[in-house]
């Protein structure tokens, strides 16, 4: 049984999705979905443990070994991201029942749970697989279900956001498909390990460069690197709150994983980061992304949109870490992937609580909320502090590692940009705080605290923010092993 864990991880949510159609009642659906997601989290915890104690796990699908069949390969990198995705999806799902009951009409709630499970299956599939074409297939499974999830939003603008994401996401995925096709033309294999072995000897350099460029642009569209982020703000702002929390915590993180995996384990470190001016491009786009997105975030009226722009800025930090091309830089990027998922998960779940009580999350609604919904507001403020990078929160840990990585590389000039970028975050978080704590509510609205079923998962994530900020041993250990694996595997 334990030998089949890598495939079970993907098969479980994939089979659970159609099973949902047989379960009629919402209560049952919710419990079932939570159970499946929790089971995946347990499996991924077990996988991470196995990888750390006894090395990589290789699973051949259907007993056909690598060159012929598709293999799933779990190493310290994807086991870490697997744990992140499954545990966050479980926490988010725990809060889903009441929030979804409020925001999605009864007749459509079934589709939410089905699409959620399919999206989870797609994301986990991308993480598990060791086959390049499989990445594309799972990417499309997760994307198509994401479009559906976004379109479930109450506002009609959700439809428009979903359509725009569909167009851009499909272009990105097709670019990835072209990239993989060109790689297959010159190597004759789709297995990532085989690709890594054969690519250095390839003579058709032009085809390789073209494939590389298509692939990187496609993935960068998926992870919403500035200026390819245009689909993200509206998609996050108008999707149901729970969907926003789930997407912000997992979807872009998985795209970052694909990028890291292909750069290091397929194209090879030397090829991607020294033959191409990629580090310079990434560094520039990362810095511009942090600044542009933070500045736009300041003027946002819709709070979900505000934090969506802040997500684009955080992706900028992650890309800056990758652009260094050193072990320290990649570790900082991985830490920020984990930590950013925690902060955004906490913030968007708290906003889901707000939307449950108030129906919308605009600056106006925030007036006087510090008194009316103290626990929910406190969670947003804690998440905001973490976003800024205040010590004792996870945000501090990853920014600290990022700054150290830049100093180690000798790029001193970049450090002030990181600090100023964090100060910009202070501005937009402060706007919220000022509104919530120092202004009186203008109408006589009776807004109580968010229901416990939403508040509890929110605070679990807030505590995770603080716990991993005070005791970062687990994340630092797991990311350093993952980074070692990446740099050790590079020929």
């Amino acid at each position, binding site marked *: 049984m334990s030998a089949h864990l890598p495939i079970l991880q993907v098969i479980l949510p994939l089979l659970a999705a159609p099973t949902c159609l047989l379960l009629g009642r919402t209560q049952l659906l919710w419990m079932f979905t939570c159970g499946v997601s929790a089971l995946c989290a347990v499996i991924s915890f077990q996988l991470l443990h196995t990888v750390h104690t006894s090395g990589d796990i290789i699973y051949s699908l259907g007993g056909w070994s690598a060159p012929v069949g598709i293999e799933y390969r779990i190493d310290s990198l994807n086991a870490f991201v697997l744990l992140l995705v499954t545990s966050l999806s479980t926490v988010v799902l725990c809060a889903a029942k009441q929030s979804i009951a409020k925001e999605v009409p009864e007749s459509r709630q079934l589709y939410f749970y089905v699409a959620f499970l399919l999206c989870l299956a797609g994301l986990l599939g991308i993480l598990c697989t060791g086959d390049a074409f499989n990445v594309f297939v799972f990417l499309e499974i997760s994307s198509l279900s994401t479009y559906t999830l976004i379109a479930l939003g109450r506002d009609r603008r959700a439809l*428009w956001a979903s359509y725009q994401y569909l167009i851009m996401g499909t272009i990105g995925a097709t670019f990835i498909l072209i990239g993989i096709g060109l790689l297959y033309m010159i190597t004759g294999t789709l297995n990532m390990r085989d690709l890594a072995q054969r690519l250095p000897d390839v003579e058709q350099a032009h085809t390789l460069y073209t494939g590389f460029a298509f692939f990187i642009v496609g993935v960068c569209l998926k992870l919403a690197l500035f200026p390819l982020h245009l689909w993200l703000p509206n998609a996050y702002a108008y999707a149901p709150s729970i969907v926003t929390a789930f997407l912000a915590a997992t979807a872009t993180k998985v795209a970052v994983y694909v990028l890291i995996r292909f750069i290091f384990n397929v194209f090879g470190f030397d090829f991607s980061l020294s033959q191409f001016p990629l580090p310079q491009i990434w560094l520039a786009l990362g810095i511009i992304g942090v600044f542009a997105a933070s500045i736009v975030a300041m003027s946002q009226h819709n709070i979900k949109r505000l934090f969506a722009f802040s997500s684009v800025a955080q992706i900028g930090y992650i890309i800056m870490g990758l652009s260094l091309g050193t072990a320290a830089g990649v570790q900082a990027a991985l830490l920020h992937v984990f930590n950013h998922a925690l902060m955004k998960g906490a913030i968007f779940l708290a906003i889901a609580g707000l939307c449950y009580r108030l129906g919308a999350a605009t600056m106006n609604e925030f007036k006087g909320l510090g008194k009316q919904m103290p626990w929910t507001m406190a969670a947003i403020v804690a998440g905001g502090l973490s976003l800024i990078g205040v010590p004792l929160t996870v945000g501090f840990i990853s920014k600290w590692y990022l700054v150290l990585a830049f100093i180690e590389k000798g790029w001193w000039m970049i450090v002030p940009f990181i600090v100023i970028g964090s100060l910009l975050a202070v501005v937009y978080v402060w706007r919220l705080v000022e509104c919530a704590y120092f202004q009186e509510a203008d109408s006589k609205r009776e807004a109580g605290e968010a229901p416990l079923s939403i508040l509890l998962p929110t605070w679990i994530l807030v505590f995770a923010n603080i716990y991993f900020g005070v005791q970062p041993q687990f994340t630092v250990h797991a990311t350093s092993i993952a980074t070692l694996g990446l740099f050790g595997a590079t020929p």
Partner: protein
Amino acid sequence: MILSSHFNYWIVIVLMMIGFFIVISHGNLVKKLMGLSIFQTSVFILYISMGKVAGGTAPILDEAYSVYSNPLPHVLILTAIVVGIATTALGLALVVRINEAYGSIEEGDIEMQDCDKLDKENANK
């Protein structure tokens, strides 16, 4: 010579650019989706033509045939075609619902309506 011996790639590139241009330039949502379909189809042709071996037959295990085309890209692209159909279907379904909600399938109209709504929201402040 390159032009004629690699004509399949030229077709791919021309189709790809036509599709991409339609997606970018047209404001009609259905036309955009059609452009997206053409764009995807060009990639299907890229995959299918790369597996073709000159003079090869279909991969049939028979002593009479020794040269046959590579079936793997063809199988791969079957998957991608299914994905493409799913994408188009979902996109068209979205267009139907956008039409119900906005009463229009022109990009300009929809954005205008959203802008008006945003202005009203800000005016109510």
